[in-house]
């Protein structure tokens, strides 16, 4: 028996996979970015489907509002975005195909080997719980990873500033 939730899962997955495929096969680089965007929207809707609202919102903020906009800007600034990309040469195609089969194989074996246990307890997705977990120092807290990520981001920010800073005239 197919109920609405199962049907919507397949619809979302089909949407996600179709646009993912289109993103890698598109001839124009800008179109490719837009298809990537749609496939990321598909992931966000899968999170919504699973009732993980916080994760879905973060997916939209980070990927759609941040990364895709950044990708589009870099396309605008660097590429001749209007014309079609040149066809890939044969040796690269073969290499890419081999790599994809390899990657698919790894993921497929991982999925087959993992025993997924069905949980019966409903997940606590209350924002407060997430917030406290993120900053708690206890056994199941995430304070250390949280701080590590902030240091990483700080380093990235300093790197950007160093690259972007204007050279003062007269100094090398």
């Amino acid at each position, binding site marked *: 028996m197919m109920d609405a939730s199962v049907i919507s899962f397949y619809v979302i997955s089909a949407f996600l996979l179709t646009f993912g495929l289109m993103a890698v096969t598109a001839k124009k680089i800008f179109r490719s970015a*837009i298809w990537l*965007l749609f496939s990321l929207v598909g992931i966000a809707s899968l999170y919504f489907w699973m009732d993980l609202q916080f994760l879905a*919102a973060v997916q939209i903020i980070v990927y759609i*509002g941040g990364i895709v*906009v950044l990708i589009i*800007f870099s396309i605008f600034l660097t590429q001749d975005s209007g014309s079609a990309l040149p066809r890939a040469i044969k040796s690269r195609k073969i290499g890419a195909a081999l790599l994809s089969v390899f990657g698919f194989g790894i993921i497929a074996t991982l999925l087959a080997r993992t025993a997924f246990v069905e949980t019966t307890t409903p997940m606590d997705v209350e924002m407060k719980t997430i917030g406290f977990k993120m900053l708690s120092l206890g056994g199941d807290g995430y304070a250390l990873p949280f701080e590590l990520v902030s240091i990483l981001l700080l380093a990235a920010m300093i790197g950007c500033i160093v690259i972007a800073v204007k050279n003062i005239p007269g100094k090398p």
Partner: protein
Amino acid sequence: MLTTLTELTIVGILILTLFAVLGLVLVFMERKVSAYMQIRLGPNRVGYKGIAQTLADTIKLVVKEGLTPNGADKFLFNLAPFIVMFGAMLLMAPIPFARNSQIWDLNIGVLYITAVSSISVIGILMAGWSSNNKYSLLGAMRSGAQIVSYELSAGLAIISIVVLTGSLKISEIIASQETGWWIFRGHIPVLISFVIFIIAVTAETNRAPFDMAEAESELTAGFHTEYSGMRFALFFLAEYVNIFIVCAIGATLFLGGWMPFHIGNWAGFNHLMDFIPSSIWFFGKTFFLIFVIMWFRWTFPRLRIDQLLNLEWKYLLPIGMFNLLLMTIIAIMGWYF
């Protein structure tokens, strides 16, 4: 399942109707407010005092030909206005129009709003690129830079209210204003965030004085230069609906949404205020904020792009961050009313 479908259909139809009515009312309001600011009459021929003017405009836009430029990326060109509209429609979900009338009271409420409002920038960038026009591309890039940077300030202003209420849920934020709206109870820091919020959302909706994305005198019409007919109308409609949405969010966070004007524990006064229906409170506050944003347009001259980015990164963002810190201290010490 059938009831769910029926409910979904009814809500969908209501939202579409609200969109159409909002478009008509807000465009008319914009023209009348502009006229009032410039001491002229404004539209006054179609219908009583020009009240059917926007209806006539809509009919004109519907019957116009929708042109597609020759070198354009046809599919994306046609898709872009719908992406912008789609973003505006998604934002309608968590807005409380009156007591107990909210489509979806999500757990993450205001975070959802911040997230979804970033979708419209994609539509604008798409429109600018696919038009194959330099003005459009320049307009889109300006708009992108502007929206991405002002999102931060708006987000910080929203977070400062979340710090006070301790919840992201819209219904809880409104319930916390039962004894007075945050703008009065939270005094100085809330006032600062309110000002930052209004400035940031004016920039995010590409309104004057931050309308560099369209800048008629420099870029013809910015990202929608090549659009005509109904597709142009969609951009236009989305712009006005977005103004409504950001003002509704501002009213909800700072002015209590549908919550009537209450003062502490003055039971008699509060009870008297409750006689005014909650929908009137909500729409009254929202339209007041819309009026303020329209007022800006005729008060401030347009900024240059570098001035605009300086304003955000050198003034609003540091002030916003400092204000958030201040707010946290005040919330922890309980120094609000």
